[in-house]
Protein backbone atom coordinates (compact mmCIF):
# COMPACT_ATOMS: atom_id res chain seq x y z
CA UNK A 1 0.00 0.00 0.00
CA UNK A 2 1.14 3.57 -0.72
CA UNK A 3 0.45 5.81 2.25
CA UNK A 4 0.55 9.60 2.18
CA UNK A 5 0.17 11.22 5.58
CA UNK A 6 -0.07 14.85 6.62
CA UNK A 7 1.24 16.05 3.23
CA UNK A 8 1.88 19.70 2.46
CA UNK A 9 3.60 20.22 -0.88
CA UNK A 10 3.17 23.27 -3.11
CA UNK A 11 -0.61 23.71 -3.43
CA UNK A 12 -1.33 20.12 -2.43
CA UNK A 13 -2.73 19.26 1.00
CA UNK A 14 -3.48 15.64 1.94
CA UNK A 15 -4.28 14.65 5.51
CA UNK A 16 -4.28 10.93 4.81
CA UNK A 17 -4.49 8.87 1.61
CA UNK A 18 -4.02 5.17 0.98
CA UNK A 19 -3.44 3.88 -2.54
CA UNK A 20 -3.96 0.15 -3.03
CA UNK A 21 -2.14 -2.05 -5.57
CA UNK A 22 -3.65 -1.76 -9.05
CA UNK A 23 -4.31 1.07 -11.47
CA UNK A 24 -5.18 4.40 -9.88
CA UNK A 25 -6.22 7.25 -12.18
CA UNK A 26 -6.03 10.89 -11.15
CA UNK A 27 -8.34 13.40 -12.80
CA UNK A 28 -9.33 17.00 -12.18
CA UNK A 29 -8.99 20.56 -13.44
CA UNK A 30 -5.70 21.93 -14.80
CA UNK A 31 -3.47 23.23 -12.01
CA UNK A 32 -5.34 21.25 -9.34
CA UNK A 33 -2.32 19.28 -8.07
CA UNK A 34 -2.44 16.04 -10.07
CA UNK A 35 1.17 16.15 -11.24
CA UNK A 36 2.37 17.19 -7.77
CA UNK A 37 0.77 14.07 -6.26
CA UNK A 38 2.28 11.89 -8.98
CA UNK A 39 5.76 13.36 -8.48
CA UNK A 40 5.48 12.93 -4.70
CA UNK A 41 4.69 9.23 -5.11
CA UNK A 42 7.57 8.83 -7.56
CA UNK A 43 10.02 10.55 -5.21
CA UNK A 44 10.68 13.41 -7.63
CA UNK A 45 9.34 15.90 -5.09
CA UNK A 46 9.96 15.98 -1.36
CA UNK A 47 7.03 17.26 0.69
CA UNK A 48 7.53 20.32 2.89
CA UNK A 49 5.67 18.32 5.51
CA UNK A 50 4.45 14.74 5.86
CA UNK A 51 5.46 11.28 4.68
CA UNK A 52 5.08 9.09 1.60
CA UNK A 53 5.64 5.36 2.04
CA UNK A 54 5.39 2.62 -0.58
CA UNK A 55 4.99 -0.74 1.13
CA UNK A 56 6.83 0.76 4.10
CA UNK A 57 9.73 2.16 2.02
CA UNK A 58 10.39 5.70 0.89
CA UNK A 59 9.91 6.45 -2.84
CA UNK A 60 13.70 6.76 -3.15
CA UNK A 61 14.09 3.15 -2.01
CA UNK A 62 11.53 1.92 -4.55
CA UNK A 63 12.13 1.04 -8.22
CA UNK A 64 10.02 3.56 -10.08
CA UNK A 65 9.29 4.31 -13.72
CA UNK A 66 8.18 7.88 -14.42
CA UNK A 67 6.83 9.32 -17.66
CA UNK A 68 6.77 13.09 -17.89
CA UNK A 69 3.93 14.94 -19.60
CA UNK A 70 6.43 16.82 -21.80
CA UNK A 71 7.77 14.12 -24.15
CA UNK A 72 11.08 15.92 -24.72
CA UNK A 73 11.81 16.00 -21.00
CA UNK A 74 11.90 12.18 -20.91
CA UNK A 75 14.77 12.02 -23.36
CA UNK A 76 18.35 11.52 -22.14
CA UNK A 77 20.10 10.00 -25.15
CA UNK A 78 20.18 10.80 -28.88
CA UNK A 79 19.19 7.40 -30.26
CA UNK A 80 16.13 5.27 -29.59
CA UNK A 81 18.28 2.22 -28.87
CA UNK A 82 20.37 4.02 -26.24
CA UNK A 83 17.32 5.60 -24.67
CA UNK A 84 15.58 2.26 -24.27
CA UNK A 85 18.72 0.64 -22.84
CA UNK A 86 19.48 3.48 -20.42
CA UNK A 87 17.62 2.26 -17.27
CA UNK A 88 19.36 -1.12 -17.64
CA UNK A 89 22.77 0.52 -18.08
CA UNK A 90 22.14 2.70 -15.02
CA UNK A 91 21.41 -0.54 -13.12
CA UNK A 92 24.73 -2.05 -14.31
CA UNK A 93 23.07 -4.95 -16.14
CA UNK A 94 25.68 -6.83 -18.25
CA UNK A 95 25.91 -5.58 -21.86
CA UNK A 96 24.95 -8.89 -23.49
CA UNK A 97 21.89 -9.14 -21.29
CA UNK A 98 20.93 -5.54 -22.13
CA UNK A 99 20.96 -6.30 -25.86
CA UNK A 100 18.68 -9.30 -25.34
CA UNK A 101 16.27 -7.42 -23.06
CA UNK A 102 16.10 -4.38 -25.37
CA UNK A 103 15.36 -6.59 -28.40
CA UNK A 104 12.64 -8.53 -26.61
CA UNK A 105 11.14 -5.39 -25.09
CA UNK A 106 11.09 -3.58 -28.44
CA UNK A 107 9.32 -6.55 -29.99
CA UNK A 108 6.75 -6.67 -27.18
CA UNK A 109 6.06 -2.95 -27.51
CA UNK A 110 6.00 -3.08 -31.32
CA UNK A 111 8.71 -0.45 -31.63
CA UNK A 112 11.43 -2.43 -33.47
CA UNK A 113 10.99 -0.07 -36.45
CA UNK A 114 12.04 2.87 -34.25
CA UNK A 115 15.25 1.36 -32.85
CA UNK A 116 17.60 2.82 -35.48
CA UNK A 117 16.12 6.31 -35.36
CA UNK A 118 17.20 9.45 -33.57
CA UNK A 119 14.96 10.53 -30.67
CA UNK A 120 14.68 14.07 -32.00
CA UNK A 121 13.23 12.80 -35.29
CA UNK A 122 10.30 11.01 -33.63
CA UNK A 123 6.81 12.51 -33.58
CA UNK A 124 5.40 13.67 -30.23
CA UNK A 125 3.37 10.48 -29.93
CA UNK A 126 6.32 8.25 -30.79
CA UNK A 127 8.43 10.00 -28.15
CA UNK A 128 5.73 9.31 -25.58
CA UNK A 129 5.55 5.68 -26.63
CA UNK A 130 9.33 5.43 -26.23
CA UNK A 131 9.15 7.04 -22.78
CA UNK A 132 6.59 4.46 -21.67
CA UNK A 133 8.59 1.55 -23.04
CA UNK A 134 11.76 2.89 -21.36
CA UNK A 135 9.99 3.36 -18.01
CA UNK A 136 8.74 -0.22 -18.08
CA UNK A 137 11.96 -1.97 -19.12
CA UNK A 138 13.20 -2.51 -15.54
CA UNK A 139 9.79 -3.83 -14.37
CA UNK A 140 9.36 -1.18 -11.66
CA UNK A 141 7.22 -1.51 -8.53
CA UNK A 142 5.60 1.85 -9.26
CA UNK A 143 4.81 3.24 -12.66
CA UNK A 144 3.87 6.93 -12.54
CA UNK A 145 2.37 8.23 -15.80
CA UNK A 146 1.61 11.87 -16.36
CA UNK A 147 -0.98 12.26 -19.15
CA UNK A 148 0.82 9.89 -21.48
CA UNK A 149 -2.43 9.33 -23.37
CA UNK A 150 -2.69 12.96 -24.51
CA UNK A 151 -0.26 12.19 -27.31
CA UNK A 152 -1.34 8.73 -28.43
CA UNK A 153 -3.95 7.57 -30.91
CA UNK A 154 -6.85 5.42 -29.76
CA UNK A 155 -5.50 2.14 -31.05
CA UNK A 156 -2.08 2.74 -29.47
CA UNK A 157 -3.78 3.75 -26.20
CA UNK A 158 -5.72 0.50 -26.20
CA UNK A 159 -2.54 -1.53 -26.87
CA UNK A 160 -0.64 0.27 -24.13
CA UNK A 161 -3.54 -0.10 -21.71
CA UNK A 162 -3.34 -3.85 -22.22
CA UNK A 163 0.45 -3.86 -21.84
CA UNK A 164 0.27 -1.78 -18.68
CA UNK A 165 -2.33 -4.10 -17.21
CA UNK A 166 -0.21 -7.13 -18.09
CA UNK A 167 3.08 -5.59 -16.94
CA UNK A 168 2.83 -7.01 -13.44
CA UNK A 169 3.64 -3.58 -11.99
CA UNK A 170 2.24 -3.44 -8.46
CA UNK A 171 1.25 0.22 -8.51
CA UNK A 172 0.29 2.16 -11.60
CA UNK A 173 -0.69 5.75 -10.95
CA UNK A 174 -1.63 7.86 -13.92
CA UNK A 175 -2.95 11.34 -14.53
CA UNK A 176 -5.33 11.45 -17.46
CA UNK A 177 -7.78 13.78 -19.15
CA UNK A 178 -9.45 10.87 -20.99
CA UNK A 179 -12.41 9.90 -18.86
CA UNK A 180 -12.89 6.58 -20.65
CA UNK A 181 -9.31 5.69 -19.64
CA UNK A 182 -9.97 6.83 -16.07
CA UNK A 183 -13.09 4.66 -15.99
CA UNK A 184 -11.08 1.58 -16.88
CA UNK A 185 -8.79 1.69 -13.83
CA UNK A 186 -9.29 0.14 -10.39
CA UNK A 187 -9.41 3.38 -8.40
CA UNK A 188 -10.03 7.02 -9.15
CA UNK A 189 -9.01 10.26 -7.44
CA UNK A 190 -10.53 13.64 -8.32
CA UNK A 191 -8.29 16.52 -7.28
CA UNK A 192 -9.16 20.21 -7.37
CA UNK A 193 -7.44 23.23 -5.84
CA UNK A 194 -4.88 21.03 -4.09
CA UNK A 195 -7.38 18.80 -2.32
CA UNK A 196 -8.67 15.30 -2.97
CA UNK A 197 -12.36 15.89 -3.51
CA UNK A 198 -13.43 12.35 -4.42
CA UNK A 199 -11.67 8.98 -3.99
CA UNK A 200 -12.94 5.49 -4.66
CA UNK A 201 -13.85 3.18 -7.51
CA UNK A 202 -14.51 4.81 -10.90
CA UNK A 203 -18.23 4.04 -10.51
CA UNK A 204 -18.42 5.78 -7.13
CA UNK A 205 -16.36 8.82 -8.13
CA UNK A 206 -18.09 9.34 -11.47
CA UNK A 207 -21.46 9.06 -9.72
CA UNK A 208 -20.38 12.15 -7.78
CA UNK A 209 -19.37 13.87 -11.03
CA UNK A 210 -22.62 13.19 -12.89
CA UNK A 211 -23.71 16.25 -14.85
CA UNK A 212 -20.16 17.62 -15.12
CA UNK A 213 -17.88 17.47 -18.19
CA UNK A 214 -15.88 14.81 -16.32
CA UNK A 215 -18.65 12.21 -16.56
CA UNK A 216 -17.69 9.79 -19.39
CA UNK A 217 -19.75 10.41 -22.52
CA UNK A 218 -20.11 6.66 -23.18
CA UNK A 219 -21.64 6.23 -19.71
CA UNK A 220 -24.00 9.12 -20.39
CA UNK A 221 -25.04 7.52 -23.68
CA UNK A 222 -25.24 3.87 -22.74
CA UNK A 223 -25.09 3.79 -18.94
Amino acid at each position, binding site marked *: MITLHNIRCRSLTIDHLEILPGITSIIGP*NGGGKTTLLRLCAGLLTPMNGTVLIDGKTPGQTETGYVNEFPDRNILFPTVNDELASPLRFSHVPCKEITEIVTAHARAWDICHLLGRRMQDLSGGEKMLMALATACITRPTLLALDEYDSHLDASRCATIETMIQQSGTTYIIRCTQQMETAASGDYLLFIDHGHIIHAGTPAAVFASLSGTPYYPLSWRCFG
Partner: protein
Amino acid sequence: MKLILDQVIARRGPWSLEADGCFDKGIHLVTGDLGSGKSTLALIMAGLFPTEQGTVRMEQIRGVMLSMEFPEFYLTGLTVAEECASWGLDAEEIVQNTGLCISTTTPPLCLSRGELKCLHLSCVLARPHDLLLLDEPFSSLDCSQKERLCTELSQRQEGITVLFTHEQATFPRVDHIWEIADGRLVDCGVLPGALERWQHAPELVKKLVCAGMIPENLTPDKIWEAACRIQG
Protein backbone atom coordinates in the same frame (compact mmCIF):
# COMPACT_ATOMS: atom_id res chain seq x y z
CA MET B 1 -11.30 31.50 -49.18
CA LYS B 2 -9.54 28.18 -49.89
CA LEU B 3 -6.43 26.18 -49.12
CA ILE B 4 -5.64 23.81 -51.97
CA LEU B 5 -3.22 20.91 -51.74
CA ASP B 6 -2.54 20.06 -55.36
CA GLN B 7 -1.00 16.57 -55.64
CA VAL B 8 1.42 17.30 -52.85
CA ILE B 9 4.09 14.77 -51.95
CA ALA B 10 6.34 15.33 -48.94
CA ARG B 11 9.15 13.04 -47.92
CA ARG B 12 11.31 12.57 -44.85
CA GLY B 13 13.73 9.66 -45.29
CA PRO B 14 11.74 6.53 -46.09
CA TRP B 15 8.50 8.13 -44.89
CA SER B 16 6.26 10.00 -47.32
CA LEU B 17 2.86 11.68 -47.41
CA GLU B 18 0.61 12.35 -50.39
CA ALA B 19 -2.09 14.99 -50.06
CA ASP B 20 -4.62 16.23 -52.55
CA GLY B 21 -7.65 18.22 -51.49
CA CYS B 22 -9.38 21.52 -50.98
CA PHE B 23 -10.01 23.04 -47.54
CA ASP B 24 -12.67 25.74 -47.61
CA LYS B 25 -14.37 27.81 -44.90
CA GLY B 26 -15.42 25.87 -41.81
CA ILE B 27 -13.97 23.40 -39.32
CA HIS B 28 -11.97 20.50 -40.70
CA LEU B 29 -10.91 17.51 -38.59
CA VAL B 30 -7.77 15.59 -39.61
CA THR B 31 -7.13 12.29 -37.84
CA GLY B 32 -4.61 9.49 -38.27
CA ASP B 33 -2.45 7.04 -36.40
CA LEU B 34 0.62 7.93 -34.40
CA GLY B 35 3.39 9.09 -36.75
CA SER B 36 1.08 9.10 -39.79
CA GLY B 37 2.03 12.68 -40.63
CA LYS B 38 -0.62 14.92 -39.08
CA SER B 39 1.91 17.37 -37.65
CA THR B 40 3.89 17.33 -40.89
CA LEU B 41 0.71 18.06 -42.85
CA ALA B 42 0.06 21.01 -40.54
CA LEU B 43 3.57 22.29 -41.29
CA ILE B 44 3.02 21.78 -45.04
CA MET B 45 -0.24 23.74 -44.90
CA ALA B 46 1.53 26.52 -43.02
CA GLY B 47 4.28 26.59 -45.65
CA LEU B 48 6.88 25.46 -43.12
CA PHE B 49 7.72 22.06 -44.63
CA PRO B 50 9.03 21.70 -48.19
CA THR B 51 7.07 19.60 -50.65
CA GLU B 52 8.90 17.31 -53.04
CA GLN B 53 6.11 17.52 -55.61
CA GLY B 54 2.89 19.47 -56.05
CA THR B 55 1.85 22.84 -54.71
CA VAL B 56 0.11 24.38 -51.72
CA ARG B 57 -2.10 27.26 -52.88
CA MET B 58 -3.89 29.77 -50.69
CA GLU B 59 -6.76 31.74 -52.15
CA GLN B 60 -7.93 34.87 -50.32
CA ILE B 61 -6.06 33.78 -47.18
CA ARG B 62 -4.36 36.81 -45.67
CA GLY B 63 -2.97 35.29 -42.51
CA VAL B 64 -1.98 31.85 -41.22
CA MET B 65 -1.69 30.78 -37.57
CA LEU B 66 -0.15 27.45 -36.66
CA SER B 67 -0.52 26.30 -33.06
CA MET B 68 1.83 23.39 -32.48
CA GLU B 69 1.26 20.63 -29.96
CA PHE B 70 3.68 21.88 -27.34
CA PRO B 71 2.91 25.39 -26.07
CA GLU B 72 6.29 25.91 -24.44
CA PHE B 73 7.83 26.36 -27.91
CA TYR B 74 5.93 29.63 -28.28
CA LEU B 75 7.05 31.26 -25.05
CA THR B 76 8.85 34.58 -25.26
CA GLY B 77 7.72 36.33 -22.07
CA LEU B 78 9.09 35.80 -18.56
CA THR B 79 5.67 36.34 -16.97
CA VAL B 80 2.10 35.64 -18.05
CA ALA B 81 1.68 39.40 -18.53
CA GLU B 82 4.76 39.61 -20.77
CA GLU B 83 3.70 36.54 -22.71
CA CYS B 84 0.25 38.01 -23.42
CA ALA B 85 1.84 41.35 -24.31
CA SER B 86 4.07 39.57 -26.85
CA TRP B 87 0.86 38.57 -28.62
CA GLY B 88 -0.38 42.16 -28.36
CA LEU B 89 -3.03 41.16 -25.84
CA ASP B 90 -4.17 42.28 -22.41
CA ALA B 91 -3.14 39.68 -19.81
CA GLU B 92 -5.98 40.35 -17.36
CA GLU B 93 -8.54 39.83 -20.12
CA ILE B 94 -6.87 36.65 -21.40
CA VAL B 95 -6.56 35.12 -17.93
CA GLN B 96 -10.20 35.96 -17.22
CA ASN B 97 -11.22 34.25 -20.46
CA THR B 98 -9.42 31.06 -19.49
CA GLY B 99 -11.14 30.89 -16.12
CA LEU B 100 -7.82 29.89 -14.55
CA CYS B 101 -6.76 30.99 -11.07
CA ILE B 102 -3.33 32.28 -12.11
CA SER B 103 -1.53 35.54 -11.52
CA THR B 104 -0.27 37.61 -14.44
CA THR B 105 3.10 37.84 -12.67
CA THR B 106 3.59 34.05 -12.73
CA PRO B 107 6.40 32.78 -15.00
CA PRO B 108 4.69 30.74 -17.76
CA LEU B 109 6.97 27.75 -17.19
CA CYS B 110 5.74 27.58 -13.57
CA LEU B 111 2.22 26.89 -14.83
CA SER B 112 1.03 23.33 -15.18
CA ARG B 113 1.12 22.07 -18.75
CA GLY B 114 -2.67 22.28 -19.00
CA GLU B 115 -2.67 25.85 -17.71
CA LEU B 116 0.05 26.78 -20.20
CA LYS B 117 -1.90 25.20 -23.04
CA CYS B 118 -5.04 27.14 -22.00
CA LEU B 119 -3.09 30.37 -21.92
CA HIS B 120 -1.52 29.69 -25.32
CA LEU B 121 -4.83 28.76 -26.97
CA SER B 122 -6.55 31.80 -25.49
CA CYS B 123 -3.86 34.00 -27.03
CA VAL B 124 -4.22 32.22 -30.38
CA LEU B 125 -8.01 32.49 -30.42
CA ALA B 126 -8.10 36.11 -29.26
CA ARG B 127 -7.39 37.27 -32.81
CA PRO B 128 -9.05 36.41 -36.12
CA HIS B 129 -7.10 34.16 -38.48
CA ASP B 130 -8.08 33.28 -42.04
CA LEU B 131 -6.33 29.94 -41.73
CA LEU B 132 -6.06 28.49 -38.22
CA LEU B 133 -4.10 25.24 -37.90
CA LEU B 134 -4.37 23.60 -34.47
CA ASP B 135 -2.11 20.61 -33.86
CA GLU B 136 -3.42 18.52 -30.95
CA PRO B 137 -5.25 21.45 -29.36
CA PHE B 138 -6.96 19.25 -26.76
CA SER B 139 -3.85 17.58 -25.34
CA SER B 140 -3.35 18.40 -21.64
CA LEU B 141 -6.63 20.33 -21.33
CA ASP B 142 -9.02 19.25 -18.59
CA CYS B 143 -12.60 18.34 -19.53
CA SER B 144 -13.99 21.80 -18.71
CA GLN B 145 -11.30 23.51 -20.79
CA LYS B 146 -11.92 21.12 -23.69
CA GLU B 147 -15.59 22.09 -23.60
CA ARG B 148 -14.69 25.78 -23.46
CA LEU B 149 -12.36 25.41 -26.44
CA CYS B 150 -15.01 23.53 -28.43
CA THR B 151 -17.56 26.26 -27.72
CA GLU B 152 -15.12 28.92 -28.92
CA LEU B 153 -14.22 26.99 -32.06
CA SER B 154 -17.85 26.20 -32.86
CA GLN B 155 -18.59 29.92 -32.73
CA ARG B 156 -15.91 30.81 -35.27
CA GLN B 157 -17.91 32.22 -38.17
CA GLU B 158 -15.09 33.12 -40.52
CA GLY B 159 -11.99 31.45 -41.84
CA ILE B 160 -10.70 27.93 -42.26
CA THR B 161 -9.97 25.97 -39.08
CA VAL B 162 -8.10 22.67 -39.29
CA LEU B 163 -7.84 20.46 -36.19
CA PHE B 164 -5.20 17.72 -36.16
CA THR B 165 -6.03 15.49 -33.22
CA HIS B 166 -6.17 12.12 -31.49
CA GLU B 167 -9.03 13.32 -29.30
CA GLN B 168 -11.74 10.70 -28.87
CA ALA B 169 -14.43 12.31 -26.76
CA THR B 170 -14.74 16.08 -27.02
CA PHE B 171 -15.21 17.78 -30.38
CA PRO B 172 -16.59 21.09 -31.62
CA ARG B 173 -19.14 21.27 -34.42
CA VAL B 174 -17.15 19.84 -37.35
CA ASP B 175 -17.90 20.45 -41.04
CA HIS B 176 -15.48 18.12 -42.81
CA ILE B 177 -13.45 15.04 -41.85
CA TRP B 178 -10.15 13.90 -43.31
CA GLU B 179 -7.82 11.13 -42.25
CA ILE B 180 -4.31 10.01 -43.07
CA ALA B 181 -3.94 6.34 -43.90
CA ASP B 182 -1.14 4.45 -45.66
CA GLY B 183 0.77 7.66 -46.33
CA ARG B 184 -2.13 9.39 -48.05
CA LEU B 185 -4.63 12.07 -47.03
CA VAL B 186 -8.13 10.65 -47.46
CA ASP B 187 -11.21 12.86 -47.82
CA CYS B 188 -14.04 11.35 -45.74
CA GLY B 189 -16.36 14.19 -46.75
CA VAL B 190 -18.76 16.48 -44.95
CA LEU B 191 -20.82 15.53 -41.90
CA PRO B 192 -22.90 13.62 -41.15
CA GLY B 193 -22.15 11.32 -44.13
CA ALA B 194 -18.42 11.42 -43.40
CA LEU B 195 -19.00 9.50 -40.16
CA GLU B 196 -19.81 6.35 -42.14
CA ARG B 197 -16.49 6.50 -43.98
CA TRP B 198 -14.29 7.61 -41.08
CA GLN B 199 -11.90 4.75 -40.21
CA HIS B 200 -10.43 6.57 -37.18
CA ALA B 201 -13.81 7.37 -35.65
CA PRO B 202 -14.03 7.06 -31.85
CA GLU B 203 -15.50 3.77 -30.62
CA LEU B 204 -18.66 5.51 -29.44
CA VAL B 205 -19.27 6.99 -32.90
CA LYS B 206 -18.57 3.64 -34.57
CA LYS B 207 -21.06 2.00 -32.25
CA LEU B 208 -23.74 4.53 -33.15
CA VAL B 209 -23.05 4.26 -36.89
CA CYS B 210 -23.18 0.44 -36.69
CA ALA B 211 -26.57 0.73 -35.04
CA GLY B 212 -27.73 2.94 -37.92
CA MET B 213 -28.03 6.02 -35.70
CA ILE B 214 -25.65 8.46 -37.37
CA PRO B 215 -25.10 11.54 -35.21
CA GLU B 216 -25.78 14.85 -36.91
CA ASN B 217 -22.36 16.05 -35.69
CA LEU B 218 -19.61 15.21 -33.18
CA THR B 219 -20.59 17.55 -30.36
CA PRO B 220 -21.46 15.70 -27.12
CA ASP B 221 -25.11 16.73 -27.39
CA LYS B 222 -25.44 15.37 -30.93
CA ILE B 223 -23.76 12.10 -29.90
CA TRP B 224 -26.09 11.81 -26.93
CA GLU B 225 -29.09 12.59 -29.11
CA ALA B 226 -28.15 9.72 -31.47
CA ALA B 227 -27.69 7.38 -28.49
CA CYS B 228 -31.13 8.36 -27.20
CA ARG B 229 -32.62 7.40 -30.58
CA ILE B 230 -31.18 3.87 -30.14
CA GLN B 231 -32.71 3.59 -26.72
CA GLY B 232 -36.02 4.89 -28.03
